[in-house]
């Protein structure tokens, strides 16, 4: 298993200028590695900074310190430093991200939303739509809803569309933020199967979840993020440690 991602000392501190420059810690000194075909789960209580880690790696957030060395098709880059133009290209070609909540324009059909990312990669339209349909079908979205906007869907259906649009490209690195949080048991299993299928093909997956059972089913390793409060000073210390499993 070749290493594809090495995160070192990742730290994010938000500076809130509207609150007089108040600083809030998002995550602090997070380090881990990830190999091709490996699934690393990130677990921990709400607000501990799990999503922040993903967003810093995807560059939706500007990290305050640290490095994230990623072995791209064209060589190793520090994702936290590469030019914006390169990040956009990596997002288009290699790195997929499933946000916690789907955000779409309410005028675009689910089929189009899911096909979008492979259309951007240059896939021909009818084959892209076929592929999108196949995924939606597999994830149990009724065919009569495909031409409606996902904005009109239920929470669980939206989350499945969200997963489908990211995995359709078969990315080399996949960042998943609570991909199964609002799903019923059957849909959850389907999503797990898709993740494992990608893993088989060599995709490296970083999966944030607070659902231990989910992580135990798909993750090879689990990174646990924790806050420890000091009762005396009120100061919060963050810890990250790997927990053994399997």
């Amino acid at each position: 298993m070749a290493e594809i991602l090495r995160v070192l000392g990742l730290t994010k501190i938000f500076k809130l200028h509207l609150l007089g420059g108040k600083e809030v810690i998002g995550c602090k000194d997070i380090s881990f590695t990830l190999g091709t075909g490996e699934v690393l789960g990130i677990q921990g209580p709400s607000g501990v900074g799990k999503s922040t880690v993903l967003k810093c790696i995807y560059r939706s957030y500007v990290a305050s310190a640290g490095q994230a060395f990623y072995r791209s098709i064209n060589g190793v880059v520090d994702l936290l430093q590469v030019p914006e133009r390169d990040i956009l290209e990596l997002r288009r070609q290699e790195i997929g991200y499933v946000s916690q909540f789907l955000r779409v324009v309410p005028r675009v059909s689910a089929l189009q939303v899911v096909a979008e990312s492979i259309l951007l990669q240059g896939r021909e339209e009818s084959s892209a739509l076929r592929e999108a349909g196949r995924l939606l079908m597999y994830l149990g979205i009724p065919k009569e809803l495909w031409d409606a906007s996902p904005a009109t869907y239920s929470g669980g259906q939206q989350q499945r569309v969200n997963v489908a649009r990211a995995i359709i490209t078969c990315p080399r690195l996949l960042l998943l933020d609570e991909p199964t949080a609002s799903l019923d048991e059957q849909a959850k299993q389907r999503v797990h199967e898709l993740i494992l299928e990608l893993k088989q093909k060599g995709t490296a997956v970083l999966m944030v979840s607070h659902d231990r059972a989910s992580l135990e089913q798909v993750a090879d390793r689990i990174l646990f993020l924790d806050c420890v409060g000091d009762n005396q000073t009120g100061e919060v210390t963050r810890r990250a440690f790997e927990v053994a499993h399997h």
Partner: protein
Amino acid sequence: MPKEEPLLRVRRLARIFGSGCSKCTSCTGPLTGTNICSYCHSIVACAGVSFDLYAGEILGVVGESGSGKSTLVQCLYFDSPATAGEAYFKAYKDGQANMLACSVQEKRYIRHHLMGMVYQNPQQGLKLDFTAGGNIAEKLLAAGIYHVGQIRRRAAELLQCTEVPLERMDHLPRFFSGGMQQRVQIAKALANNPPLVFLDEVTTGLDVSVQARVLDLIKKLQRKLGLTMIVISHDLGVIRLLTNRVLVMKSGRVVETGLTDQILEDPQHPYTQLLVSSML
């Protein structure tokens, strides 16, 4: 990463209205919160603006009224002369010469052959008492296409592309709705397949359903034609929908640049934080 040259490189662009003095740029800007030089009372509309734009990219410029975003585009489209700075455009002399310093004839050539512009106000981009087809013909004539049949064919094709009914081709835009005027303007801007298109607040003032239709059209055309665009808007919703990267301007300066999602989710500059927190 494979390196490619930018389509447009802008360096230290400035536009000052008034006599200007040596203190103009140091005593204006976001720190002092004013555009007016306290020594010579010149207005510094924008200064020190630098950025790169790559082919196929859509760059947003966002900021409040008076932040200098329109002035920036007017300088690049030669509507207004830049006071200082350089701009290198790959489509003009392979990006080797500063286009802001070239002759009037060359500027006219660049404007008519290599650029398209869509203004907020259709009155600025269209002659409302010339037919829709005639407006498009004007742009084609300026670029040296004189064959009437060819012009009419191209005009029809463009109007179809921008969803203007063909039977309106020989009608006057004066009697069109705001949304349709804007679509004619887009057709005109795209007439010569320009490598670079500017959109200045194109949907401001349109009601929401018309706005959505115009934005969807722009998005569709961008994908189909691989357009490179600079989109100016004070509306973060428009910026989110259309752009990949953003420049945030305040008091004539760029205060922050970033990926569009990063600017919206993790704005760094106090002004950007205020702007994002003011979103509906």
